[in-house]
């Protein structure tokens, strides 16, 4: 019987240069601190010897264009490339220093997809979509120079309304847990993004964050109280800049009722950086 042996969630713009440019010295310092916490989580993940790492993240209108925006999409195939962007700006630039191709865990990805469809989840699939910083910044920060196990990238549509609900994302995470339990693999799962930033996806509100809202999320996660999290509305997530918490909802469904342990929380004017790990004992 397979097991989820590691679960963590973390911010995914992990670029000290970027945050120094937009927030000054404190931006670099707090990003370095967050990355150190994520690297330490990665060491614990590597020590599990997991067969696969499921990465739940969002697309920043890089992999999917306006001909199709899937609510939930499972990347299948044997490997996945990182996104390439000419003259990359901002958070795209961090990708340029990362390996260009990553192996996939084909059997686990196919099982999540096929069993999901059978269970009533109308999942999208992709053989070709590349992954952007939302996937690769956390994965590379966790692993450093250590080998990266086969990945199962899963996209959640966090930004293009109408998004899937928090409750639906949680249910999909429960599905992932069932698939893992039916299989033979030890699996890690991470969710990326957040916490509060870019409220209402408005340029005018860049620089606002909602630490009170983040505090509520953390309170519930630390206590394993997942019902109020499933009740979060799209409007609440949009106004508080918590769009990417939908990725975290998938992870919560996969590990519920496990309790979260905060490894790092750092407020910046642009974003609240976070690194959280779940106690699966």
């Amino acid at each position, binding site marked *: 019987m397979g097991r989820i042996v590691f679960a963590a969630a973390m911010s995914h713009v992990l670029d000290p240069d970027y945050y120094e*440019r*937009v*927030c*000054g010295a404190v931006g670099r310092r707090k990003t370095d601190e967050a990355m150190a916490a994520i690297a330490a989580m990665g060491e614990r993940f590597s020590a599990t010897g997991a067969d696969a790492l499921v990465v739940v993240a969002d697309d*920043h*209108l890089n992999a999917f*264009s*306006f001909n199709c925006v899937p609510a939930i999409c499972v990347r299948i195939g044997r490997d996945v490339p990182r996104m390439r*962007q*000419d*003259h*990359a*700006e*901002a*958070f*795209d630039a961090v990708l340029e220093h990362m390996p260009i191709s990553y192996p996939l865990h084909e059997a686990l990805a196919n099982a999540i997809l096929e069993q999901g469809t059978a269970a009533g989840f109308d999942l999208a699939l992709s053989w070709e979509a590349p992954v952007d910083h939302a996937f690769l910044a956390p994965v590379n920060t966790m692993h450093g120079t250590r080998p990266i196990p086969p990945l199962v990238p899963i996209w959640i549509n966090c*930004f*293009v309304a109408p998004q899937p609900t928090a409750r639906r994302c949680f249910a999909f995470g429960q599905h992932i847990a069932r698939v893992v339990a039916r299989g033979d693999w030890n699996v890690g799962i991470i969710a990326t993004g957040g916490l509060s930033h*870019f409220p209402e*996806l*408005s*340029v*005018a509100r*860049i*620089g606002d964050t909602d630490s009170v809202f983040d505090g509520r999320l953390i309170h519930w996660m630390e206590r394993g109280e997942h019902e109020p999290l499933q009740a979060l509305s799209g409007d609440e997530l949009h106004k508080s800049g918590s769009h990417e918490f939908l990725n975290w909802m998938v992870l919560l469904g996969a590990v519920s009722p496990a309790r979260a342990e905060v490894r790092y929380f750092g407020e*910046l*004017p*642009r974003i609240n950086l976070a690194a959280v790990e779940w106690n699966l004992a």
Partner: protein
Amino acid sequence: MSRYAVNSLLYRLKKDPEFRARFGADPLAAIADADLSADERAAFAARDMRRINELGGYLHLVLSIPGLAVHPPRH
């Protein structure tokens, strides 16, 4: 407002360097066939990404189009 037209233009500006170069040389000519309102067309002509965001352009696109990305004030 034509949300699709605005965002498909932004996406093309990000991902198509040849189109980006044509836009850079003559924005109005490059977007002549796009189904935009007068406000939207004026915002593109002015390369005003902040205004394009107000008109429905997705934040992550207006922040990341090479050479056109909006740079909010440092905090």
